[in-house]
Structure formats: C-alpha cells, structure tokens
C-alpha cells in the first residue's frame, strides 16, 4: 500500500511479484500495470445494418466497462495504467478523433440503444480525461506538480489537438470543469504554450487551404506567376458539390473548434494574437465568405435540405469567426484597459488600430458590428481613457456606417442611436 502524504512519484510499494515472491518497486512502475487490452472506440454506424450496430455496441460496451474499471482503481494503479498502457492511449485517442460531433452532417443515432450507449461512453471518457488532468485528488493521493507536468507531456496524454477536441466535444455543458483542467495542464507544463505557438501557423494554413481550394489564393501565392500547363483553378461555383460540402464542413468544424478552445481557455488568445491571427481571420472572412455564400445560394441543389443545411453551416461559421475576433480583441486589448493595467495606453492604441484595419473589410465589419457594436467598445475606451482622439473615433464610427451602406444592409433598429 502506498504511504500517505508522499507524492506518488516518490512512493515505493512492496507486493508479490509474478513468481509470488515479495518485491519492492516504485509505485509508478510498468510492471504494476494490468494487461487490460483496451479496444479502440468505433463511432456509431451512420446508416447501420443490425450487424454494424451490434459491432458498435460491443466495442462501446468494452470501452465503457474498461473506463469504469479504470475510474474505480486506486490513485497509484490508475496512474500506472495511464502512463504505461499503450492500448489505453489508443482507446482515448480514438474517441477524440472519431466521436461524433453534434455539428457533423450525419444525423444522431436513430436507435435508442446506440444513443444511450454513446452517452455512457461520452461521460466515462470525459471523467477519465478529468482524472488525468488532476494532479491532486486528495491530501493523500497526489503527484508532484512538476512530475505531473512531465508525465502528461512526455507520454502525450494531452497535446494541443486533443485539448481542442476536448473543448469541442465536452465544452458546451462542462466549460468550467474543462477550463480548470486545461488551465492546470498549461500551468504545470508550460511547454504546452510552446506547442500552441507551433500549432497556430498550421491553423492559419487550414484557412489558406480553404482559400486555395476556392481559387482565392492568398496574397503570397497570388504573387507567383501561373505555370503555363497549370489547369484553370476551380472556384466554389465550379468545384464538385462534394468538394463544396467538404469545405463547408471543414470550415464549420474549424471555426467551432477554435472558438470553443479560445472561449474555454482565454489564455490562448495572446498566442493566436501574436501570430497576427486576427488580421488573417478578417481577411479570410472578407475574401471567402461572399464567394461561398454565392455558391450555396446559386448552385443547383437537387436536395434543397442540403442547401439549407450548408447555408446554416456557413452562417454559423461566420458567427464563430466574428466571435473569435471579439474574444481575441477582448482578451488582448480590451481587458487590460478595463482592468486599468499599466499597458492600457498601448492596448487602446492597438484596439483602435485593429478597428481601423477592419474598415476596408466591409462585410466583416458590418457582421462584427451587428454582434458587437463598435460604438459600445469605443464608448468604453473613451470612459477609460478620456484623452482618446475624438476625430479618430468619429472617423471609425463613420467607417462602420459606410460599411453597412456598402454591403447593402441596414443596422438592426435596436442599434440605431442618436449621436
């Protein structure tokens, strides 16, 4: 039995070995792991035959049974399993990769047995990740924080894609718990900030790849001369319908995931911000959204339900992009001003510069202003820093009006105020 009030990573245990002879081992030791053979998770069949449904249920039952067993293990045995059992890693990873998101195109499982089983697995997987993100379960059961940080990082128990998956799968109803988990992970292992820093360029590449597929090459690519034998670039109007569907699903998933992550873990905003994510996002919005909207409206859909669904996904993606922009501005510029931090003057200047940079992006600006009226933020700014140049703020507000006019839309009546 493990000794009390000593971190697990420093404990020794004496127990019978494979031949029955007593031996003393570190409490965290591969030989203390059980041969459990966790199976990977398989998602519910989309339009399943009874055999496929039965296969799903059987895999899911094993996953659930094994996770329940894992959660019932004492602290030391739990960590031995979590650190040294590769099949457990595969099982958890397969859930994050393949568990259906509520925004996936496929409908939710029609069979109540499948739905119920999916719910049960969903819960135990979350609890397993929660336990894995907790270095101190009680006064007696804990790991040294730095060792915990090393364990989760070196064994890839958490990585940036997994953390983002957790946010999008569980974040809607469990945001506070998830915030605590992710905050603890980043606090005990700051290398995750470095990983996040390495990940943001790949996130930006995703947006570039969507532009590229829609024939809307980014600035750098547009500078290169076109090769003579290069085929004519497809656009959102001319690509196959399946490609358009894939692009919109990808956009919907990407924007929802980024938003869920930034919303649950706002400390990540500064990393995204430092990569110029805000500017790239608004530029993407201005460039891609009108083309994609046009394609969804004007292409010939045999299935009108699909057309309606794609429109909703695109519109949802627009909302999420606007909300991401707001989160970035709020946590990197507005928050320091509202809290009266030392750098509030610099933050105010940055905020105004961002608003100014939005002026040419008229579609983005009007959509942003609809959800987060600029006039409100500027008013806050003026209250916090009365020295703000009024000519500049008036110019900005006029720019907002002009953006609404140029996209041919009217502000909602609730937003029209007398200046």
């Amino acid at each position: 039995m493990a000794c009390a009030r000593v971190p697990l990573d420093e404990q020794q245990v004496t127990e019978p070995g494979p031949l029955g002879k007593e031996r003393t081992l570190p409490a965290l030791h591969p030989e203390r792991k059980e041969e459990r053979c966790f199976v990977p998770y398989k998602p519910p069949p989309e339009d399943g035959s009874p055999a496929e449904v039965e296969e799903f249920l059987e895999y899911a039952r094993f996953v659930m049974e094994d996770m329940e067993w894992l959660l019932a293990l004492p602290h030391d045995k739990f960590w031995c399993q979590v650190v040294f059992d590769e099949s457990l890693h595969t099982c958890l990873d397969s859930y994050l990769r393949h568990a259906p998101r509520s925004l996936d195109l496929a409908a939710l499982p029609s069979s109540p047995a499948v739905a119920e089983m999916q719910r049960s697995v969903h819960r135990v997987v979350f609890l397993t990740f929660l336990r894995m993100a907790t270095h101190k379960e009680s006064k007696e059961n804990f790991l040294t924080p730095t060792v915990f940080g090393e364990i989760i990082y070196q064994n890839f128990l958490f990585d940036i894609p997994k953390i983002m998956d957790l946010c999008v799968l569980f974040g809607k109803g469990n945001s506070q718990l998830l915030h605590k988990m992710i905050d603890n992970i980043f606090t005990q292992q700051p290398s995750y900030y470095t990983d996040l820093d390495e990940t943001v360029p790949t996130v930006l590449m995703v947006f570039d790849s969507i532009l590229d597929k829609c024939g809307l090459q980014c600035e750098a690519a547009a500078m290169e001369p076109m090769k003579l034998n290069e085929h004519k670039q497809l656009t959102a109007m001319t690509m196959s319908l399946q490609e358009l569907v894939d692009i919109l699903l990808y956009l919907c998933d990407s924007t929802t995931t980024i938003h869920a992550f930034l919303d649950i873990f706002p400390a990540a905003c500064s990393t995204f911000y430092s990569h110029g994510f805000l500017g790239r996002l608004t530029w993407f919005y201005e460039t891609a959204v009108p083309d994609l909207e046009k394609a969804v409206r004007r292409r010939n859909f045999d299935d009108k339900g699909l057309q309606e669904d794609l429109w909703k996904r695109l519109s949802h993606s627009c909302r999420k992009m606007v909300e991401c922009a707001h989160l970035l501005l709020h946590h990197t510029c507005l928050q320091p001003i509202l809290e009266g931090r030392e750098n509030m003057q610099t933050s105010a200047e940055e905020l105004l510069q961002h608003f100014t940079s939005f002026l040419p992006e008229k579609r983005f600006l009007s959509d942003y202003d609809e959800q987060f009226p600029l006039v409100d933020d500027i008013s806050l700014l003026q209250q916090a820093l009365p020295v703000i140049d009024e000519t500049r703020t008036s110019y900005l507000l006029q720019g907002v009006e002009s953006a609404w006019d140029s996209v041919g839309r009217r502000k909602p009546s609730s937003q029209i105020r007398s200046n």
Partner: protein
Amino acid sequence: MSPPRLTGALRSFSHVSKKDDFTEQPYDLKTKRLKRQELFAREGLTWQKIVHFCSEHQDKAKHQAASQELKSFLLAAKQIVGAEHGQEAIESAAVFLFETFHNQDHVGTEETRAIRQMFGPFPSAAAEASCDCVARLVAPLGNDRVEDFVQKQSSHRSPQRASAFGRNIAFSYDCYTLDPLEGLPCAAVQEENVSLDF
C-alpha cells in the same frame, strides 16, 4: 469515415502530437474477449467453489444427481466457449454461465448479450441447456443462499464503483449546435440578378 476536421489537420501537419504507429495493431473484439475471459478466470468465483457449493449439505443420492448435472453443465459450457479450448477455459466459462443464470429461469436478451460479449457468437441451444442445468443445480439450495454465495465470491472481481473517481461530478451532455446568423434567404436563386453587362 470521420469528416474533415481541424484537429485532424493539426495532428498531420504540426509536430505536437505523437506520430501514429501503424505497425501496432489495436486490439480487436476476438483478442479482447480472450483477455476478458482470462481476467474473469483469475479472480472471484471458481469452478471448484461452485462444485463444492452445489455438493455440500446433500445426501448421497442428491450428491450423485448434482455431479451428473455439473458434468452436463460443463458440456454445455464447452459448446459455448468452443471445443478447441482446454479444461481451464471451459471451467471458467461455466463459472461465468453460473453467475449469469443463477437467478434466471430463461435465457433473456440481457443474458444473450452478456454471453455474446464474453464469448462471441454461440449456439443458443447450449445457452438454454446451461440455464436449465444451473436452475436444477440451485433449486434445492434456496435462492437467498445462492445469491449470497455468488455476491460474496464475485465482489472480489467487481471494481469499487461506490468510490470510483467522478461519481459525484455533475456531467452535462449539452453539445454545441448550429447557431447561424441568418437563414437561407427565401427564393435565393431567383433573387440573384443575372449579369447582362457583356
């Protein structure tokens, strides 16, 4: 197949995740069932304990009948687990069937599911024969005594659910849903003006 996902791209193109090891095959259902049988056999109730329990406190005539019944039960278990398995596996299967049927008078859906999960596809006649054998074995012993015996022996195997991590955590099943800014404009196609600016 999963639809295209941001995190899929991050796993493929950034260097912050463990690279997939394609040489390592994940466990399939067959391997898992064998492992489960092995774990089942290791702890808790054993065939010897069942034999002893069914035979004790019986007079000679009943003892003889119980021995015969236990033999038939093992035979039915052999048909379920597969003839290629050894005596140990057959006895372990019989233990599982005894636990499953000790308080059942017929093979219901739950029992079928449990046997299938443990052994894979099986002949239903063998399951029915097992169920009947168990019923005849436990009939003279009394329900409470049998229940008490099974619970006491099986408790060594079951995880301590009452103290499991997270039992008091309120988990929400809420999911993100589509939250569009606006619906598809009515008669969208007709609204579009065809450009005549040649």
